[in-house]
């Protein structure tokens, strides 16, 4: 009898949770719309673009935002200050090195801005939201793996435990399914640390991007600068580890008539660049695309302000979020796989002639 009562209470509780879960976005939408209706109308594209791009402050909740340090290389040397002033008051920050203004998240010298529409910009090395997120992932990844390594040192070859047993199969998967088959048993060891770091760096940054509240939610791995850096590194590693056979296959393709070799050389050479380019675009588009889909769905609640739309959109949003969790892992896998493949092609022994 008592257990039945308990069960009933549990079901009711779950039901209440589901109802709240579906209604909450609508309630929030109504609340924020009543707040904002006096200032400006909700614009989903603006909100989404703002989210996708980098910012110089970290928005936390409502009006609450964390100012971030601005680091500029100006005509007068290094200039460091906090970003708060850009978002409050008249939006101009003046230091003893000069005064600056923020326009669409770009920092310009204040005096020159707006004169000819093409103002001079100092070099911006600020700790933006994405850089903040980058440091967060850096701290997280180094803490996780160095502490796991400590466990391996302490426990020796004993069976893995706790966090160790979560990451060990992934590490072994990257080693045995991604790196070794593509690069080969003999040379894999040299590239394995880099590729493991690459995999977890992309994966964890993708995951941080999916956390919808502070300190997650940045779009670091969907930022072109991030993917550009990683694909450039892949490109450089491939070119520097390439052996003679690889270069021969690019500039003087064996086994084809000589005139064709002249045609193939520029194509093959462009191929080396386009591989890296594709890596850059693939990660950027997948992660940014995911963020855009999630935000667009959430925006529908704020546009329609209807319980019906909320009830339909929220489960679908949940579904997309789960999908994005998968995409986060898949994109890390694809990037690491292709990098291993390119390295493997570059270091392969010339044995098929």
């Amino acid at each position, binding site marked *: 009898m008592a257990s039945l009562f308990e069960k009933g209470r549990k079901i009711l509780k779950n039901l209440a949770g589901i109802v709240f879960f579906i209604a909450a976005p609508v309630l929030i939408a109504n609340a924020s719309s009543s707040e904002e209706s006096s200032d400006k109308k909700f614009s989903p594209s603006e909100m989404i673009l703002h989210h996708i791009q980098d910012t110089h402050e970290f928005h936390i909740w409502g009006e609450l935002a964390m100012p971030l340090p601005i680091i500029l290389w100006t005509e007068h040397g290094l200039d460091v200050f906090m970003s708060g002033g850009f978002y409050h008051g008249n939006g101009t920050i003046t230091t003893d090195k000069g005064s600056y203004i923020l326009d669409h998240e770009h920092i310009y010298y204040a005096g020159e801005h707006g004169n000819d529409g093409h103002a001079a910009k100092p070099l911006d090395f600020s700790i933006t939201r994405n850089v903040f997120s980058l440091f967060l992932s850096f701290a997280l990844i180094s803490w996780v793996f160095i502490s*796991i*390594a400590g466990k391996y040192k302490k426990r020796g070859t004993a069976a893995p435990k706790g966090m160790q047993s979560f990451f*060990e199969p992934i590490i072994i998967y990257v*080693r045995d399914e991604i790196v070794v088959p593509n690069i080969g048993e003999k040379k894999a060891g040299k590239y394995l640390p880099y590729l493991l770091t690459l995999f977890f760096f992309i994966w964890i940054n993708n995951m941080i991007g999916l956390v919808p509240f502070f300190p997650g939610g940045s779009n670091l791995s969907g*930022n072109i*600068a991030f993917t550009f*850096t990683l694909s450039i590194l892949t490109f450089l590693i491939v070119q520097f580890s390439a052996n003679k056979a690889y270069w021969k296959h690019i500039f003087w393709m064996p086994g084809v008539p000589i005139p064709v070799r002249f045609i193939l050389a520029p194509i093959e050479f462009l191929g080396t660049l386009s591989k890296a380019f594709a890596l850059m675009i693939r990660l950027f588009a997948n992660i940014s695309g995911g963020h855009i889909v999630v935000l667009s769905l959430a925006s529908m609640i704020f546009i329609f302000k209807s319980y019906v739309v909320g009830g339909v959109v929220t489960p679908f949003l949940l579904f997309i979020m789960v999908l994005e969790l998968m995409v986060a892992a898949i994109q890390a896998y694809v990037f690491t796989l292709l990098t291993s493949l390119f390295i493997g092609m570059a270091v392969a022994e010339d044995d098929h002639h």
Partner: protein
Amino acid sequence: MELLIPNPGLVFWTSIAFLLLVFLLSKFAWKPILQTLKIREESIEEALKAAELAREEMGDLKADNEKLLVKAREEREQLLRDASKAASMIKEDAKADAEAISKRMMEDAKVGIEAEKQSALAEVRSQVANLSVEIAEKIIRKNLENDKAQKALVDEFLKDKSFN
């Protein structure tokens, strides 16, 4: 289009953070982790091989045991057979001995008995002779108590003895 232009600041920080991470993790995480994994895999491999070897040895041992057991059984049977043979031999010997002894004893007894018999017979004979003599004496004495009898006897003798 703005989205597609890499921001140099972020490229700078990403490069620094990522390369530092590669360096840090290679040195302090991947090296011990991969080493331990390798050692563990090797030890597992070795343990499996050792187990296989032990199993083979166990099989050999079992076969050996079986052989030993068969041999032991045979030996036991042989021993039992020998023992029973020996036992029956001892029994036979004992029986023969006993028979011989008893035979000898019987013979001795027979000889003894014969000797006794002879001596007893001799005794009896002498006794009988003595008795006969005594009886005869007594009879004679009795018969010859009076002169008449003596005379009759002499007559008898004389009658028998013919002086021809």
